[in-house]
């Protein structure tokens, strides 16, 4: 197949193959993306751009390629969510508190990527501390969705929390990006930007060096334009890591190798509880179409039940803030990050540094978390939520006795307008209705672009798999991708001065 003339139109796989046969240099690849990022600043996808670093890393890659020592991702420019600590490169977590924080160490996932030869383009925008579903809680302003509704010039959210990563991949500012997913933060923005987002099984990618939000739910994963690219990137990101006690020591299969195996005989479960009242009809219609696509490729469709689904969001909004309030206790204004200039004593220093450094959504979650963990309320809230979590995990285990993967929508709606849901936290939280249950159960899931809404905005379908069975998730995701043949692209309005 002929390659596109503009290197930013390459898929990750195409770029890799072109580099290997020396059809393009790493330098050219990096330079074209640096240029695209500069032209795409209107999208506010990056908090920190690292063009000089990208070009010198690309030169080093070209040297290796010349010596015949190219590694798996040699010379491939990537965007990294600004939640991964990068040595010597500012890492803000989208927060004023960490506005000037420069890590002295590298997260395991990003170290894996650099060891595979990948090139850092910059750090992408996100909801503050990954808390949000629209990227609007970022201290650095919201990232903007490259997509606009048909006939409209209004800015839309890219979803969140990995909104900058999703926007940068959708707008071809990066070949691919990393994200993290605590309640949907990879899959929901992927669905809203017409890109592919994979949340691996809890324990598949190391959490070491990723700014913690809710430690029993956080998981890093790839955000790409194709399912094959997600397979390639996951292979490089995943590893067992002794530095993360919840990292699981199981072999990482070659995900790319099994991608085209097809879904003949695969049992695909349709969880009936995912039909939510008031969901737009086009979401249901796309879901039905997805089942038809898989069926026509030889899969068996079975209806399954996940009876506790409707309680997942409420359990999540107890567990996640509880863990967040505990994790964010480390921000004391003394050792790193913001320190107030208006404090008399130590207590005031803590209280004012935190009040100045944290935005409204983060404060709200710290307050909820502190409340549900406080004396007298622990049993009623946190303990009960952890029990509901057991029930949700059992639901999935039961369903997986009848099927190999589940098919569900990724989001209850397409991308929405800036400011549309910020006034009512609960309406914002409802965005994660289809994504949160997997995090509670630790399971892998992928969102694949599958169609357009009536307004011409991308919609995603989600494949959910058994623990550590990302290979089957990717294979089924690939089958959706083939059938959907999603070729729509946003118009490049952001390039107009």
């Amino acid at each position, binding site marked *: 197949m002929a390659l596109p003339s503009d290197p930013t139109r390459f898929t990750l796989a195409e770029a890799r193959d072109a580099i290997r046969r020396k059809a393009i240099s790493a330098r050219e690849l990096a330079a074209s993306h640096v240029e695209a990022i500069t032209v795409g600043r209107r999208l506010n996808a990056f908090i920190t751009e690292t063009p000089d670093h990208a070009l010198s890393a690309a030169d080093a890659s070209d040297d290796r390629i010349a010596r015949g020592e190219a590694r798996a991702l040699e010379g491939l420019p990537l965007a990294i969510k600004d939640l991964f600590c990068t040595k010597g490169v500012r890492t803000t977590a989208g927060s004023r508190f960490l506005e000037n924080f*420069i890590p002295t160490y590298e997260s395991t996932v990003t170290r894996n990527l650099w060891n595979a030869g990948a090139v850092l383009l910059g750090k992408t925008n996100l909801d503050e501390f990954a808390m949000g579903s629209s990227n609007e809680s970022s201290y650095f302003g919201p990232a903007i969705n490259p997509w606009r509704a048909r006939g409209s010039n209004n800015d839309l959210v890219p979803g969140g929390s990995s909104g900058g990563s999703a926007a940068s991949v959708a707008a071809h500012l990066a070949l691919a990006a990393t994200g993290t997913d605590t309640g949907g933060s990879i899959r929901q923005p992927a669905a809203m930007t017409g890109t592919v987002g994979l949340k691996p099984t809890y324990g598949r990618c190391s959490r070491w060096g990723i700014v913690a939000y809710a430690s029993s739910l956080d998981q890093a994963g790839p955000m790409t334009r194709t399912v094959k690219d997600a397979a390639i990137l996951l292979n490089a990101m995943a590893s067992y890591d002794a530095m993360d*006690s919840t990292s699981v020591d199981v072999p990482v299969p070659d995900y790319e190798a099994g991608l085209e195996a097809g879904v003949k005989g695969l049992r695909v479960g349709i969880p009936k509880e995912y039909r939510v009242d008031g969901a737009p009809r086009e979401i249901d219609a796309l879901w039905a179409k997805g089942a038809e696509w898989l069926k026509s490729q030889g899969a068996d469709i079975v209806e399954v039940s996940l009876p506790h689904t409707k309680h997942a969001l409420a359990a999540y909004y107890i567990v996640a803030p509880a863990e967040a309030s505990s994790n964010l206790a480390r921000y004391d204004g003394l*050792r790193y990050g913001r320190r107030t200039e208006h404090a008399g004593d130590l207590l005031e220093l803590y209280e004012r540094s935190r009040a100045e450094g944290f935005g409204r959504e983060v*404060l*709200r979650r710290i*307050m909820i978390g502190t409340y549900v963990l406080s004396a007298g309320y622990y049993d009623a809230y946190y303990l009960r939520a952890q029990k509901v979590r057991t029930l949700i995990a059992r639901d999935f285990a039961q369903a997986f006795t009848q099927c190999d993967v589940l098919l569900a929508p990724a989001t209850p709606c397409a991308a929405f307008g800036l400011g549309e849901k910020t006034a009512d936290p609960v309406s914002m939280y409802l965005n994660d209705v289809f994504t949160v249950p997997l995090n509670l*159960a630790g399971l892998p899931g992928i969102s694949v672009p599958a169609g357009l809404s009536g307004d011409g905005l991308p919609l995603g379908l989600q494949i959910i798999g058994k623990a550590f069975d990302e290979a089957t998730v990717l294979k089924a995701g690939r089958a959706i991708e083939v059938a959907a043949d999603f070729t729509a692209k946003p118009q490049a309005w952001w390039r107009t001065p």
Partner: protein
Amino acid sequence: MSVDKDTVRRIAKLARVAMDDAQVAEMEAELNAVLAWVEQLSVVDCENVPPMTSVVEQRLTTREDAVTDGGYADDLMKNAPQSEGHFFVVPKVVE
């Protein structure tokens, strides 16, 4: 269950966050909206259900009890807003 302004102030104290009266009032309304919503969990039958303590089935790994890392005092101080040598400077605590 719902919270009043005094509870919000107590929680803010526990969370070490300074909050003025206007913020307390806002937070009271927001917390109550979220708490009313999560209240739905009280209808779930959790009798004899153990709380989840481990997300995926795994045995925590152990290692030899030995010093395997360290010696980063300079690195640790690099992001300190105020420091002297290898010490973090804090407001006077003991008179």
